[in-house]
């Protein structure tokens, strides 16, 4: 056993696109890095994601999105998390997200964004650093 108390991470796919290959690859990579990964499948509403995060008491949430609806869905996810008192959960995202949207997303509390082609090691390193210093607002990943 690599860690005594593995961190718990939720991998979720909000919205209507069904392309879950990226989400599954990240889930698998995090598993192999010693995380407990809760995988919820496709077509999740913001409420479902926040509910799963609450019931599973996750340390972090990875959102995978390729539909272009991130500017609509992400703020609602953050809001649903806050409604449930989950202020201390790290949220990051992956998928197709235009660079122009990145500053706004970061402002609303998305801590990192990984575009297509990002090595899984980057995500793992990001989570390691977040876990080491969870409180500070830091820039670890470089958006593409």
């Amino acid at each position, binding site marked *: 056993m690599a860690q005594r108390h593995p961190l718990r991470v939720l991998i979720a796919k909000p919205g209507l696109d069904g392309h879950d290959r990226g989400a599954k690859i990240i889930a698998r990579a995090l*598993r192999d890095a010693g*995380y407990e990964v809760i995988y919820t499948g496709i077509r999740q509403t913001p409420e479902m994601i926040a509910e799963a995060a609450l019931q599973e008491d996750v340390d972090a949430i990875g959102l995978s999105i390729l539909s272009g609806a991130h500017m609509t869905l992400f703020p609602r996810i953050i809001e649903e998390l806050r409604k449930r008192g989950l202020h201390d959960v790290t949220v990051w995202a992956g998928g197709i997200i235009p660079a122009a949207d990145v500053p706004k997303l970061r402002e609303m509390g998305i801590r990192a964004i990984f575009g297509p082609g990002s090595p899984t090691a980057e995500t793992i390193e990001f989570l390691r650093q977040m876990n080491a210093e969870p409180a500070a607002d830091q820039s670890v990943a470089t958006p593409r």
Partner: protein
Amino acid sequence: MTTHLQRTASADELASGLLAGDRLALTRLISAVEAGRDDAREAMRCLFAKTGKAHVVGVTGPPGCGKSTLTTRLALEYRAHGETVGIVAVDPTSPYTGGAILGDRVRMMELHGDPGVFMRSMATRGVMGGLARSTLDVVLLLDAFGKDVVIIETVGVGQDEVEIARAADTTLVVGVPNLGDDIQAIKAGILEIADILVVNKADVAGADRLVADLRTMLQLGPERGWPTPIQQTVAIEGTGVRELVEHIALHRAYLQESRTWHLRRADSARRQVRAIVEDRVQRRLEQLTTGADWESRFASIAAREEDPYSVAEEVLRQVAHDG
């Protein structure tokens, strides 16, 4: 519910929150218990008196037999009767990396958004037998939270993972057709723990034969106060689930009318006491015998300067002394 329970909240605060119906407190206390926090043990002590009311239903069977789907359907059926449901779903931890993929929620989509259901995934974290180390405690927490029914879904099991029978009041063993000649997947061991046998995917050819084989096997077994029913289901469509819930209710009535309810719970209490002691001793043992000093002690044993028996005696006295 807008509480502001930080991860640093004491288990005491979490326990009061739980009793007041705060789901954030419940979820954080589950994590504290799973992490083996000392104050969580204190909280469990206080909460134990509030438990014992929920009917604990175990669902076990080989990988891919439909445990998660069946669990979802059972939960929906209970919800239709107005009963609240807790679910603990156990999945395996990788023995190589310590990581896990907990994927049971994928098949439980229909339950999301219903505040009457609380579902928690657990990884085995290296424990054999089909359950995680603190599964029983999580069941107790859901019970204390007021859930009427708590369903435990085990990891996909083979033939002798029978821990579930000690954790549940009613154990469902789920089989599916065509898993081998006769009934390889659920023969000895696991067949014996079934209070109810479920033949899932009953729309698949071969289901009738599995039912017939199981029936023969039951007839060959000893006569028991509770004749084990066999229920066919097609979980994905919900077929047979209402009947299954009726069997579960009948089993509960049987347990309560006979002395079996108390005998089972006393047996489970015995195991629980022993498991708690083992767990604490094991954690203490790890603490006590780790570090540079101990590495050199072990080296000196290897060099025959000391013997392992005396050293073990010394450690044992230390463990006993600490309590």
